[in-house]
């Protein structure tokens, strides 16, 4: 599909890139049925193809209004449409550019801007997230049930391994994960320790940049990325063999550093290296012999929720199922695996009712086979599902952690 750029954008590199991206779409419509928001509203403008057309209109007419923004805001950035698209449309990249352009072309009102600004500023700062969460957890017993469910119980991470292993890997500690589900990182460190790998954290590293970037605040997002690169660089030079993420939402952003910083003369090469080193924890474990782990396998059927970032961005739709099956767990049948749970970064805050409808659908789809528990690979999905789920929702790595099974 050809885009005739409006003369206003003739020198705009972002707009040109968007035009090139759109040229991959042949408007066949095969993506519609896999788009959670189109299934929700049945409105073409809430479908991938509809959004591509809205952005094409922006690029060709040189202007766009609140309607375009509304339909783009409703997009989860789940990228289910990319997996479905035979033509190779890179919708996620287009949506990011579109959001950035709309911040300028169709600016929001002051109240909404302030809210989004505070959200970005809070969520991308691990210390602030932790402080708020601790306060919430302190007052949790006094809160009404609806609010109570929103605040996850405080986790006990358990002792970290002390020995130094021959191999080292770096870990992205993440902003929400380090505060809300510290057990995930601790479990990952213990499992890797058993396999002869030490997991290290660079204390100056912080948010991966996804929160800012996906909300259209590109320059703040890129700053987050540069800061992380600076924090990791000495350890990479000292021989760390990989950067491990145990939240696929963050991991899928790390693998894009190289692409997003390609025009930064100072950081381009380093960013590319960081992306090449980045791996999800599942990627490390999939080839290991896990039958040797001293863990409890007889825990009932496990329903695996594969986050969108894992299936559609990292393109590893079956990896957790494979690991758990090989490790000896019994998996529950699930349906509509390709559909988003509605968490989607800040979506659960900014598009609450839509997000809750998607969660309801997802919980039903995960429980068709009466599982004993649900596991996910991303902190956002885990917390979002746990808020409403009647059965426990964990990070899958906890199942492989010997310490968790000793009642810690």
């Amino acid at each position: 599909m050809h885009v005739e750029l409006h003369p206003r954008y003739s020198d705009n590199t972002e707009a040109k890139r968007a035009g090139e991206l759109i040229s991959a779409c042949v408007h066949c419509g095969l993506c519609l049925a896999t788009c959670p928001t189109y299934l929700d509203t049945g409105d073409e403008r809430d479908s991938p193809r509809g959004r591509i057309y809205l952005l094409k209109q922006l690029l060709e007419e040189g202007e766009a209004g609140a309607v375009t923004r509304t339909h783009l805001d409703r997009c989860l950035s789940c990228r289910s449409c990319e997996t479905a698209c035979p033509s190779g449309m890179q919708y996620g990249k287009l949506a990011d550019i579109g959001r950035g352009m709309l911040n300028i072309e169709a600016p929001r009102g002051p109240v909404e801007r302030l809210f989004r600004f505070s959200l970005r500023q809070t969520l991308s700062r691990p210390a602030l997230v932790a402080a708020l969460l601790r306060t919430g957890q302190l007052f949790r017993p006094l809160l009404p049930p609806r609010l109570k469910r929103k605040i996850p119980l405080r986790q006990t991470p358990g002792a970290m391994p002390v020995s130094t292993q021959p191999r080292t890997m770096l870990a992205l500690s993440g902003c929400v994960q380090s505060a809300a589900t510290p057990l995930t990182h601790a479990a990952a460190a213990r499992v890797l320790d058993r396999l002869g790998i030490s997991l290290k954290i660079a204390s100056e590293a912080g948010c991966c940049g996804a929160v800012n970037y996906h909300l259209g605040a590109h320059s703040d997002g890129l700053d987050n990325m540069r800061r992380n690169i600076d924090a990791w660089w000495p350890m990479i030079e000292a021989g760390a063999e990989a950067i491990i993420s145990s939240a696929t939402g963050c991991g899928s952003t790390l693998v894009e550093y190289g692409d997003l910083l390609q025009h930064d003369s100072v950081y381009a090469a380093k960013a590319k290296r960081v992306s090449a080193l980045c791996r999800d924890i599942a990627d490390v474990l999939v080839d290991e012999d896990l039958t040797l782990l001293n863990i409890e396998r007889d825990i009932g059927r496990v329903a695996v929720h594969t986050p969108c970032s894992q299936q559609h961005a990292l393109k590893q739709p079956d990896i957790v199922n494979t690991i758990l099956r090989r490790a000896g767990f019994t998996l529950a049948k699930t349906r509509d695996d390709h559909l988003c749970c509605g968490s989607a970064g800040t979506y659960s805050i900014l598009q609450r009712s839509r997000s809750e409808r998607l969660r309801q659908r997802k919980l039903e789809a995960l429980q068709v086979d009466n599982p004993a528990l649900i596991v996910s690979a991303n902190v956002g999905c885990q917390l979002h599902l746990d808020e409403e789920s009647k059965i426990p929702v964990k990070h899958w790595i906890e199942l492989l952690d010997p310490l968790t099974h000793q009642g810690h």
Partner: protein
Amino acid sequence: MPHPESVLLGLSKLNNILEVDPKARTARLQPGVTNLAISEAAAAHGLYYGPDPSSQIACSIGGNVAENSGGVHCLKYGLTVHNLLCVEMLTVEGERTTLGGGGLDSPGYDLMALVTGSEGLLGIVTEVTVKLLPCPEVARVVMAGFDSVRAAGDAVGAVIAAGIIPAGLEMMDALAIQAAEDFAQAGYPKEAQALLLCELDGTAEEVDQHVEAVTNIFNQHGASSLRVSSDDAERALLWKGRKSAFPAIGRLSADYYCMDGTIPRSQVSHVLEEISKLSAKYQLRCANVFHAGDGNLHPLIMFDSGDPQQLARAERFGADILELSVAVGGCITGEHGVGLEKLNQMPSQFSEAELHQFEDIKHAFDPALTLNPGKGIPILKRCQEYRALPRRHSHD
């Protein structure tokens, strides 16, 4: 493409499956139910809906009725028209009518067959009752690569001549193989000039026997590679590439013009050779996907709509292919209909008397030419009577 002054009726939200009756093997559907959703709902009863257009994940049963859609399985299980029991339709006056009925035949003229494939010109389909088929005990796909399109074409003829009716028999040429494989990663032989996918279904013994016969035939015709699916996941993967072949062409080119002609099976090698000459003449690449079993050819002409010259060349190239289809004894549409696009070729296919008849039918249902104005039936400039029709039915 709707008429610039028309009102668009979108029926995609009428997407409820009203009833699945496993005993009668039928399903009653609102018009916006997607083709794939019917089979998904029927699966719980070990049933499925036969016609499976490649667009099945997205296209609606209402659209299927309007276009009389086929699919890779129509060779054995027929087109939409062969799988319908009853169609409820709103006439242009707003009257609700039911065509067909619960049984295989109903009294009077078979108006349901007339409406099926009428491209929305005669009424608005508001409810459809379809027949469901029992899922076969076993289904397997034989995939074979060939060094030439001619060898693959001959192999197709030999399969049919051997008295085997495959559930599906599809062919792709080198460019189509490349694009489909890039997306589906199904393991298609990328070096092959032509690929055949042949599905055989039935009881286990029957399928084993047919798989062996088809494999032998493919080998005798010089297959350069051969693979037989071992389970349903592999079978689905082999079809995935074929079913995504049209949009996958988007990986090779910014735009493509999908043609849809039907030719006698014996003419396939000749037609494909002519198409490759036309491709050289118009300097545009063309991939070919072919429902080989029933002779429905889909050449996909690649062009860049940003270049007006390429667009014009693509249109002339397409028109030449349609004329070629008619010249070899075929037809200008297999399953995508006429719409606006093929109006110019209608007079090559049909005589004036036939076109006259089409107009009369349209008049009988929709005298003011309100539904899908300007589509399906050409206004013949040389015919006084047609020129006298209201301007509304014309796009210019």
